[in-house]
């Protein structure tokens, strides 16, 4: 088989358990659009991990991914270093974001969800939208891409759960203030399911169209297996090919949360089985 291995051009630690990698994949870099994702396997026995694309470097043919180490597979990925190769890297997958001149847009990124919201924010900004960005995280150490987001927004608001960076509170706090004050034409929200749900409920009150990006459990990412099914507007959709972006007001959030827990027991086994005897990774 023709060997296609994917070189880790650069690795950066962005915060505790938060890592960025620039992967050499020129064909994907040339083709990918904001909102799309890739699937990678770190090594031969690894899981297929879906990650939304955070940035592209067309000149160097690089695709940037940002991930949080939450279980065995992301911990293993995080142990890869610059100069190492990933076994598999496939994309671009999913449908691109709708980028148009909407008017005033609020882009909301929560935690590691700031990474996928960034290229969408940039594209909306470049399209001439008035962009207000809200980024939030547990604490100041977990805030990523603040400078990048600032550069592509007319204004940026940062919030943290503990007040260690920006204002203390949730992303929905400043969002409610904005919605009370000005007319917003569109909201894009990416982050934990709970955050996207809360944002969607809030914007529904104000009747503002809201796009969310779902990251359910996937296997192939090409519509072949249906592991990633979600319900949107009462209809079953496959997030990998019909999404990952959907109308936040139509998503069945309870189902999405329930399905995200389908393999919790196995994930625990996998995490405990890895990391060597020293327990250095726990």
């Amino acid at each position, binding site marked *: *088989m*023709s060997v*296609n291995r994917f070189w880790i051009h650069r690795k950066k630690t962005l915060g505790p358990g938060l890592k960025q990698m620039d992967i050499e994949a020129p*064909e*994907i870099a040339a*083709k990918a659009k904001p909102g799309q994702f890739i699937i990678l*396997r770190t090594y031969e*026995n*690894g*899981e*297929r991990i879906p990650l939304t694309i955070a940035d592209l470097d067309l000149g160097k043919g690089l695709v940037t991914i940002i991930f949080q180490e939450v279980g*065995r*597979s992301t911990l293993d990925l995080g142990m890869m270093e610059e100069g190492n190769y990933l*076994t*598999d*890297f*496939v*994309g*671009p*997958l999913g449908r691109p974001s709708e980028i148009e001149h909407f008017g005033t847009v609020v882009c909301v990124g929560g935690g590691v969800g700031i990474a996928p919201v960034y290229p969408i924010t940039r594209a909306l900004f470049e399209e001439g939208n008035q962009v207000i960005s809200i980024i939030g995280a547990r604490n100041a150490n977990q805030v990523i891409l603040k400078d990048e987001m600032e550069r592509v927004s007319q204004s940026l608001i940062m919030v943290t759960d503990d007040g260690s960076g920006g204002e203390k509170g949730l992303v929905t706090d400043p969002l409610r203030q904005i919605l009370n004050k000005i007319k917003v034409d569109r909201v894009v929200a990416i982050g934990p399911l709970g955050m996207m749900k809360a944002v969607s409920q809030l914007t529904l009150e104000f009747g503002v169209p809201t796009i969310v990006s779902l990251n359910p459990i996937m*296997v*192939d*990412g*090409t*519509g*072949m*297996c*249906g*592991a990633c*099914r979600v*319900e949107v507007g009462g209809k*079953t959709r496959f997030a990998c*090919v019909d999404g990952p972006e959907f109308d936040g007001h139509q998503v069945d959030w*309870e*189902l999405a949360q*329930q*399905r995200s*827990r*389908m*393999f919790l*027991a*196995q*994930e625990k*086994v*996998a995490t405990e*089985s*890895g990391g060597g005897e020293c327990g250095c990774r726990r």
Partner: protein
Amino acid sequence: MPEINYVRELMPTQDPAVRVTNFTEVALGFNPETAIKEAQRCLGCKKAPCSKGCPVEIDIPAFIQLIQKNDFSGAIAKIKEKNTLPAVCGRVCPQESQCEKLCILGKKGEAVGIGRLERFAADFEMKQDQTVVVKSAPSSGRKVAVVGSGPSGLTAAADLCLMGHEVTVFEALHTPGGVLVYGIPEFRLPKDIVGREIAAIEKMGVTIRTNMVIGKIYTLDELLNSGYDAIFVGTGAGLPYFMNIPGENLNGVYSANEFLTRANLMKAYLFPDHLTPIALGEKVAVIGGGNVAMDAARTALRLGAKESYIVYRRTEKEMPARREEVEHAHEEGVQFRFLTSPTEIVGDEAGWMKGMTCLRFELGEPDASGRRSPVPIKGSEYFMPMDTVIMAIGQGPNPLVPETTPDMETNRWGNIIADESTGCTSKTAVFAGGDVVTGAATVILAMGAGKKAARAIDVYLKTLG
């Protein structure tokens, strides 16, 4: 003239009680003595009706005669003139409804075990250092892209390569083979064997690029514009169907595609050495009666399910699965619930399924497929406690290529419309075959389609001057 022997040699198999605890192959294959004995049953009919039943046109009496003469290398070389995946076909072809169905011996007794002999010859070759590499024609200077590395794509690729064309196969997953690697279980078709047959195709000169989702990374038009003179699309039946009944999205409900992909491609049976898991309960129901359903039910037992059921709305007689697969499932303890179909999957507070409401059926008039159609019996609902449900009611064509190729016609189910004898589509230079055209069928029919399309593509390329 030796006496006609109407009884075929038995295929040795792993004991059911043992094999249900492992993923190693069920059928163990003939040894040389048995193979020769079985080959000697062949009458060597001049008209060779068997060959007419073979979608890839193998000269069956010729290879069997070589086995009779102890010339196993000759036998495999003869098969490989027509078939690039003999070890695969010898295992998973429904020979009983193709070549063996037409065997003269079958009229009074048992047909020659053609599939078993094909497998024997292929396995014999794999044990040797030297493998037969069929020589390609001189280079034509033409480039062909093959989309999908399943049975139809691999066959088209190998044949086009032999005709002297430069062939690149694009595979969406990380391992080539399509349904041979993600769908058919290890215990029926060892992945090592698939890998070797694919390696032999690469050795012929075919390039395989994995991790390439055509429709996403490149459209068909982009491939044509980047220097490919023709394209064969063999993207298979990569869209799982669900029943559209309440509760299908509860935790514990899988499509057969997901369940089998996790088990086969991702090797979940080796979890956590291989990191992709399967969450499986003690009681597993597989809905459907085809080969995929049998594979899923048997896989569930091997993964530790205490009870594995096939739930099918008609009777055993109407099941589309191969006889042999059904027998193996019976032997291994799979339980069958015929004339039964779920109307709802019922869940608990946490969103996990705990059972299904089923309806009983009786057989009515024959339908379009000629099979008697199941009619629900009013008021026959009952609850079947169950931990896991696997939907194996069929697959549709994967839409990624058609939806990015607006000038290629599809039918109302999304199948690409292609000429049966050439694979010709409505789009110039694009040919298609296999499940994406016919709907979910068999490995060998897809291979036959790949073969016909390769011939048509060769003719087309010659018209380019």
